């Protein structure tokens, strides 16, 4: 049963990721990104990471895609009346894509032969399911990274404020 769900959501995620790349309209790209992220969070639920699935929807679907849509609204980029890409770019981009897929596939194939197979973890309690496990890890082993990340958020906020402020006496920068 969960296999069917995996293939369903994997197809949804990959298909809407392709739609992000190939649609001409920027708003349609952002909405396809939203669908793709919802598919990824469904895959997280299949992997028993319920907190991460919820965070994915809140942070990415709620904040990031909404921010993208705001910026698209703010910047009228005339995306509709010009070609989204050239044919030569398409060919060379597809070549690079094929090379990357080939490399990753050979990597995964070799790994599947040599690494011992993981047994199905359905018997025991899944580790990612409990909030307690996250709290214990975040406040013991990863305490310093948590503080650094908090500081990073502060710096990002200050950076955004500085970037979006209009400076009057800075003609020399131009």
């Amino acid at each position, binding site marked *: 049963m969960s296999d069917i769900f995996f293939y369903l959501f994997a197809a949804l995620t990959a298909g809407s990721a392709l739609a992000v790349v190939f649609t001409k309209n*920027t708003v349609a790209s952002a909405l396809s990104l939203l669908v793709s992220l919802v598919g990824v969070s469904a895959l997280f639920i299949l992997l028993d990471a319920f907190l991460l699935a919820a965070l994915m929807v809140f942070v990415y679907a709620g904040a990031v895609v909404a921010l993208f849509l705001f910026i698209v609204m703010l910047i009228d980029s005339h995306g509709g009346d010009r070609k989204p890409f050239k044919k030569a*770019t398409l060919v060379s981009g597809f070549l690079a894509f094929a090379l990357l897929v080939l490399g990753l596939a050979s990597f995964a194939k070799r790994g599947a032969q040599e690494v011992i197979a993981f047994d199905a973890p359905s018997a025991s309690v899944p*580790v990612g399911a409990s909030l307690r496990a996250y709290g214990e890890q975040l406040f013991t082993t990863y305490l310093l990274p948590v503080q650094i990340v908090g500081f990073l958020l502060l710096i990002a906020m200050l950076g955004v404020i500085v970037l979006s402020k209009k400076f009057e006496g800075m003609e020399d920068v131009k």
Partner: protein
Amino acid sequence: MTVGLNEYLYLSAVLFAIGFFGVLLRKNTLVIYMCLELMLVASTVALVAFSHFNRTMDGNVFVFFILTVAAAEVAVGLAIIVALFRRRQTIQVEELNALKN
């Protein structure tokens, strides 16, 4: 046939490759940025799958940090794009050629 680690890794690789393809292909800076986000999300799928099949918490916690960094990165990146649009009146990469010549 049951879905194992390999299927999740293949999916992650495909998503990463699609994002990479989009970064190479598109000319609109906003869409390039969305494809970058797609690549980040692809790496989180691999991390959560590793964490689940290894029965450790480290991958999940790492995804937690990736989410935070991605949120900060999106905020700063979009602010840069807006500042760029204010100055140059365009966000198409073929017109942003100030470093050429």
